[in-house]
């Protein structure tokens, strides 16, 4: 087995009285799609926000290749080759497609001026390559549909080109056609040797693209297995069972 590119050890996070993560161990390997599944409030988004530098953990370690971090800032995460598609998409609604894709990595002319023309051209090329249809790329993002916005966030992550790509519910607002294109994109990125971490509620989608599945429940990693060792039905039963166990404990 390959050495994991990302390894999170005993990562903990509390929000006031709520324990979001109670000491999670997580690994992701190169050239693999690792899916994180679990019910709402299981800690999936908190875990990836910690990895993407959006949240500071209360404890634990984050190993990225041969470097160890107690916590990461967004800048450090980007420097380590981590790119993220957040559930809230993190788009600036007032800017157009190019403004969002190139935010923080602008193309300059004469080193001081933004090259708007070139950025728009590159945006057109990128969207065409990813089969993303946005009729007017100069309109502000706020005028786009939910699916278009989500596709734009994915395109931004692809353009950023990190080795470790995190996708938090990347297709929740997309139609079937767009979703299948994004799934093809995952397989393509996997072939390129990228490490992909996928969070999704859609278990069938997870089984279509993931190599490895980690199940989180109530802030703990309760299971981790290769996709071939389970099925969407079994996984669904496991999540429901865990939820019922918790409800029983609460009743007791």
């Amino acid at each position: 087995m390959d050495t994991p590119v990302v390894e999170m050890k005993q990562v903990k996070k509390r929000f006031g009285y709520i324990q979001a993560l109670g000491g999670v161990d997580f690994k992701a390997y190169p050239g693999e799609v690792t899916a994180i599944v679990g019910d709402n409030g299981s800690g999936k988004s908190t875990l990836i926000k910690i990895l993407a530098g959006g949240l500071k953990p209360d404890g634990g370690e984050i190993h990225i290749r041969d470097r160890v971090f107690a916590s990461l800032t967004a800048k450090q995460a980007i420097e380590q080759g981590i790119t993220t598609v957040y559930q809230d998409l993190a788009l600036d609604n007032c800017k157009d497609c190019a403004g969002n894709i190139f935010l923080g990595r602008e193309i300059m002319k004469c080193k001081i001026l933004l090259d708007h023309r070139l950025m728009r051209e590159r945006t057109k090329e990128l969207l065409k390559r990813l089969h993303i249809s946005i009729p007017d790329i100069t309109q502000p993002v706020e005028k786009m549909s939910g699916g278009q916005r989500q596709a734009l966030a994915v395109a931004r992550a692809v353009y950023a080109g990190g080795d470790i790509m995190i996708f938090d519910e990347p297709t929740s607002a997309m139609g079937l056609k767009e979703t299948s294109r994004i799934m093809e994109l995952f397989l393509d990125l996997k072939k390129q040797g990228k490490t992909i971490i996928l969070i999704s509620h859609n278990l069938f989608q997870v089984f279509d693209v993931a190599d490895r599945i980690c199940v989180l429940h109530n802030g703990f990693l309760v299971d981790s297995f290769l996709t071939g060792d389970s099925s969407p039905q079994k996984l669904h039963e496991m999540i429901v069972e865990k939820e019922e166990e918790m409800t029983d404990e609460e009743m007791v």
Partner: protein
Amino acid sequence: MRKWFSKYSQQIFLLAVMILICIILTAESKYFLTWKNIKNILEANSYRMILAVGMTFVIASGVMDLSAGAVVSMCGVIMAVSLHAGFSVPAAVALGICSGAAMGALNGILIHYTGINFFILTLAVSGMLRGISLMVTDGKPITRFGQEFIFLGIGRIGGLQLSVILAILLVFVSFPLMFHMKWGNYVTALGGNKDALEKSGIHVGRIRISVHVFLGATAAVTAVIITARLNSAEPNAGMNMELDAITAAVMGGTAITGGRASIGGTVLAVLILGVIRNGLTLMSVSSDYQQWITGFLLLVSVLISEIRVRKTGALMK
């Protein structure tokens, strides 16, 4: 073409309003459309233009600064005290501008690191700065600074007052700064979606502080012009000047919620407000009405801005 009209609708509307006001005032007073009066309008509004451009950047970043007028007063007092203490004019001006930038930095640091609402914070800073100005001056104006300093307020180069040249230069520098450089791009992104900017790896605090430093510096330049023009530094100088600056920026099309800015719109709005003031003076209308009109125009601008925001769905951010 339609897209262009839609993008610049507010500026086109302002231009139309300006032309309409000019036509009315020309009919009312034959003195209005003379070069002398136009020069008067430009000179009287040059320092307002400088502060409004600074405020445009701050509003584009998603906040407002209610202490800008107090910074003007404080910087004037600092320059006056240092000139009386024997500082040379360049040294006193440099000290005043650095002080303005430092006061701006204080606002930026407080807004970013405390997370307290910017209205309350900048209002508190405004009260503190006005208080210090009053304490230092004992409530009395500090006067007489010498011809070299007065030149900065009323001196002319090529027939134009220095303050007008400064305002024009600032406007020309602000265009590329806001729309064609990284910093301006980050300033509007800060107002558009702070989280998106942070998640792009940009140090949001640095942008927040720097944009307030910029406003502080423009407030200090305003203070230089006013103090030199009046040959007097007054603790009450710059009173309500932030209201004029906010009105001009919002009227010009800068989104009150941040994320979008219009330097051209701010310029047009300052000129409209200036023309209205001038027109009222020419028609011998009391200056009390000018304050009322500024407040009314701010209200109308905010309402229009809010409608635009709702229409485009920008509240989603």
